[in-house]
């Protein structure tokens, strides 16, 4: 709980994904007003918190694709009471994990060596860019996940219901959702 507002603290995290799940979150549209009344939205790509605070609920979008994201999600897990895999990339790896059919080198070669017309350097090995993991992984493969919200992207309705269930202290009713929906 936020000590000032006494509202539950909500965070959203974006790992390897397209941000579509976050966009679907914004598709709450005017319900964002209600959400704002019910919860303190702290760390999120929409806000300027640069350190990840202790929070009650975190929605994680995206699969784990880099060593940095692996560290990040472990840090987030330690500071979160309820962690939700938010959307198919987090839940299954989805399209993001399709690069697992190829080696990291092959993927980098296509993106840079084979398609750039001028190669000053290849973003691999330089400390300014994170190391790509050999295998893109769904979030629950690396940290414990409490709830899973499938969909590519989950609809705003589904996100709203999940958040309201969690904010009201209910076990979210997640039955009947589909992968890829």
């Amino acid at each position, binding site marked *: 709980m936020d000590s000032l507002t006494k509202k539950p603290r909500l965070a959203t995290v974006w790992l390897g994904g397209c941000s579509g799940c976050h966009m679907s979150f914004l598709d709450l549209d005017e319900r*964002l007003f209600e959400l704002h009344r019910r919860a303190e939205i702290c760390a999120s*790509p929409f*806000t*300027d918190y640069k350190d990840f605070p202790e929070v009650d609920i975190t929605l994680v979008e995206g699969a784990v694709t880099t060593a940095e994201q692996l560290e990040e999600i472990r840090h987030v897990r330690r500071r979160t009471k309820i962690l939700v895999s938010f959307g198919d990339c987090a839940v299954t790896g989805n399209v993001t994990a399709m690069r697992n059919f190829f080696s990291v080198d092959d993927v980098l070669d296509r993106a840079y060596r084979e398609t750039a017309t001028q190669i000053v350097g290849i973003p691999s090995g330089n400390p300014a860019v994170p190391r790509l993991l050999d295998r893109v992984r769904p979030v629950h493969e690396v940290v414990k996940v409490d709830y899973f919200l499938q969909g590519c992207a989950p609809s705003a309705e589904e996100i709203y219901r999940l958040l309201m269930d969690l904010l009201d202290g209910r076990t979210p009713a997640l039955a009947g959702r589909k992968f890829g929906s």
Partner: protein
Amino acid sequence: MAEKIVIQPVTRIEGHARISIYLGDDGAVEAAQFHVIEFRGFEKLCEGRPFHEMPGLMSRICGICPVSHILASSKAGDMLLGVEIPPAAERQRRLMNYAQVLQSHALSFFHLSAPDLLLGMDAEPARRNIFGLIDAEPELARRGIRLRQFGQRIIEVLGGKRIHPSWGVPGGVTKVLARAERDELLGWIEEARQSLNIALERMKSLLDGFQQEIQSLGNFPSLFLGTVNEEGEAEYYDGRIRIVDSEGNIVADGLDPRRYHTYLGEASEEWSFMKFPYYKPLGYPGGMYRVGPLARLNVVRAMGTPLADRELREFRQRNGAARNESFYYHLARLIEMLHAVERIEELLLDPEILGDHVRVNAGQNRFEAVGSCEAPRGTLFHHYQVDEGGLMKRANLLIATSQNNLAMNRAVEQAAQRFVTPGRLTEGMLNRVEAAIRCYDPCLSCSTHALGLMPLEIELRDRAGRLLDRLRR
């Protein structure tokens, strides 16, 4: 020994990035780099898949502008089939593209940038966001949210889904627009126009207060690239490429987007996952060009719709030839939204859009194709090569945001030099460096944010790049 300041993550932009600022031995800003640290590898992971799946697959590059990828991909698919799509399908695609521009620009302006503009660059970080805006200016926030909602609603009505609709396909679209759906969408127009007038007036009244930012957040000469129709008016779906210089002189015109590789090149650097496109005749990095809202306003003769053209004339009167200030991307975005709403109304009132022939069936007739369109952030190119069975052999994606990469780096450097004074790292100062980036509304999920563990990190590195010390705030 050089000092390095790292801002990570860069927030309220659509993607994963960090900024490094290098201080020279005298403590002055020597250089700055904008690192894109997200990489997903779509150019490879599509390999072996049927090209008919590409609109659906490529849409997953980006959840903010999935429609742009669907359109570029579908157009590449049209070319592989060698077909002209039916008029109703073309109208639908144009409508969806304007809807995409509307919702994406609304997101950029209201959800991400308005907090800086309306609450001030030095506002408390915890409030400097859409929720702070809801508290401070609930009515404007609501209007902004509803503008985005309108764009998303069009996408939902046409495609059945707001994010990643399965709708665009090689040869057309999958669904006929029903009259009742069309009528519902028409019902949104008046409010949208009002909201944009309010936002434009508000934005214009604010400009005087941001003179410092206007002059220093990415104000430098460069080329501008965008597509126009035969009359030189703004064309987002099927235009020809025009390139102008910082004075507004036409450098190149009538270029076929499908031959982009003959005049646009891409460089790769080891410190960013985002490539650096450049205009080939001027080489790298001299061929720096900008794309997106400001670039499009700079290349067009006129927008082609009355309200947007009135705003464009006022913009040009006020600013004269001053088209180089990146801060004006925000104003350009609002003008484009107004244009989009006008075009949306036109298209909805065009009876052709209700046509029930929306798709051409044909076999594969080519092995290589380029699909292109104006995405909210600039011109987008999808270049595919397929085998005899229609399976993807190679893809090259020239993403709108990446075409602003050189400019964004220049803007960051300029902002850092102006606002970062050694020994005094203030939040507002760092926020301005980020704000320089935010002008371009970079969609980095497209090109490749990590909500950081490190709020602000100063890294000391020697010439070999070895980490000597690290300070955390």
